[in-house]
């Protein structure tokens, strides 16, 4: 088993989950409560990675991160080196790819909160931030856990985006799923099988935990797309 690849994947998944938590909360809040009439366009954009082939997303990310891409230029100006085929590039691309897995459970969770609680908070003098941290967030804990766990698990298992954006650099961008692919290609079925089994077990454990938590919190599984 390639421990280096495993550690790299775990590191990537932690970074992506943390970034999506920070970005996902305000984004989901806005998507859940805004009355903007063109909101559905942004909803579609957020959900896009669910249906887009990872190679397509990876391809556009690669263009954007390349020396002539917007992202690549900005990054180069700031840090003095390119973004493609680096760990940072991998984190950005993965975050985009896993965005719906973080945002949708949060939206579902925010939308189940009784609006009268938010009205009550407002008439008791609380501004939006206080309402968010004192009422919305504590009542969305199952959704938050679901969002974190799904972002983590989804990033852990991704392949196409990583291959397009990160390539296959040992210790930098070679994640577990790419390691499995490599080994299978070179007919090391025993090595591929060990890592594959480990990923299977982790994914199963993670999903069981999510369903278990949602059930204990007395809510339906906060994954509206999973039903389809």
């Amino acid at each position, binding site marked *: 088993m390639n421990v280096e690849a495993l550690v790299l994947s775990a590191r990537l998944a932690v970074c992506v989950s943390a970034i999506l938590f920070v970005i996902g909360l305000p984004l989901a809040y806005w998507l859940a409560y805004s009355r903007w009439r063109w909101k559905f366009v942004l909803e579609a954009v957020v959900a896009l990675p669910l249906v887009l082939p990872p190679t397509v997303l990876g391809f556009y990310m690669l263009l954007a991160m390349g020396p002539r891409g917007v992202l690549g230029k900005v990054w180069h100006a700031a840090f003095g080196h390119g973004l493609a085929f680096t760990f940072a590039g991998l984190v950005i691309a993965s975050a985009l790819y896993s965005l719906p897995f973080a945002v949708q459970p949060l939206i579902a969770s925010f939308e189940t909160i009784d609006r*009268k*609680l938010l009205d*009550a908070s407002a*008439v*008791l*003098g*609380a501004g939006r931030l206080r309402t968010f941290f*004192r009422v919305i967030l504590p009542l969305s804990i199952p959704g938050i856990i679901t969002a974190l766990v799904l972002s983590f698990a989804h990033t852990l298992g991704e392949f196409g985006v990583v291959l397009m954006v990160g390539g296959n650099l040992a210790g930098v961008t070679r994640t577990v799923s790419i390691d499995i692919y490599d080994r299978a290609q070179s007919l090391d079925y025993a090595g591929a099988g060990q890592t594959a089994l480990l990923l299977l077990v982790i994914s199963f454990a993670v999903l069981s935990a999510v369903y278990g938590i949602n059930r204990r919190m007395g809510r339906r599984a906060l994954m509206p797309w999973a039903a389809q």
Partner: protein
Amino acid sequence: MYRDEAVPEFLLDVKLEAPPGITIVFGPSGAGKSTVLDCIAGLTQPDSGAIAIGGTVLLDSEKKVNLRPQRRQIAYVFQNLALFPHMTVERNVAYGLPDAAAHAKADRIAEILQMFHVEALRGRKPHEISGGEKQRVALARSLVTLPRALLLDEPLTGLDAELKGSIINDLRAWNSAHKIPILYVTHSREEVDALGERMIALEHGKIVSEGTPREVLEAPRRRRLAQAAGFENLLNGTVMDLREPDGVMRVRLAEAGCEIEVPLGHAAPGDRIIVAIRAGDILLASEVPKGLSARNVLEGKIASMERRGALVVARVDCGAVFSVHVTPGAVRALELAVEKKVWLVLKTHSCHFVED
């Protein structure tokens, strides 16, 4: 004036003043009662209008003043109470006091919990206490902030009369010290009787009547309100003539083909009106009554009888069909039965004149 986006045809056109004390806002569902409260609290924005309290302007569409709900200092208890389910009773009550100094805050919370008799529940969460206790906690949470006004949207639905009475007494006790205006929305007659004081009747987004609850309920000005207020008999009629010295007018009931006397109202001969009579205000006789002060006696036949708990509802056909409440004892004594010929006696002042 307020226009709801979701219901484009809904217009709220209301001008009201609420002095300190309880003002009941009464009317059928869909009349706009909750919308009035939402506008006052700032939770919905009317297209145009003005709201002020004790000299502070909360909303003035002409001057472009519109305070956010957070800055209005108006307490609002919703029908579902909206207690924060993840907080204890004490933290719910403390929610509106984030800036107060710790000891002053603790004193105020202790005082209000005691006032509403829920000090023993301070450590419990909303799902661990009863319906009546939740209502007390919701009131305590709203009033601990010392609001400038209190809005109550059917807060006591689902409680028995005794419990309602005791909570209303606690509310009155609190307000005898603080003297703020309280707008109390309800469509329940029972609550109106318990609350007394002042009343506004709302229908289709307009105030149709205001005064003491007795004035509003006893002289209904609109057919639907009359039904809401328990007038089982609503009869179409035409004013025949006015007898001002006697304080009455004669009204010809269209369906019944007979004339009755009704207290004088703002009507002229030839006007089409509605006469509202409570089923419980009609006397029923098995022989032609004699020597009565009542001026209106109608002959008819019992069309049906139905037992409802401790009373019997008799439907009597006098041309128009009247609902009459009688006791089971009276049914036996008068040997009332379907097809039996009877006489209805209506006191003039039990016949209420309603504009159509």
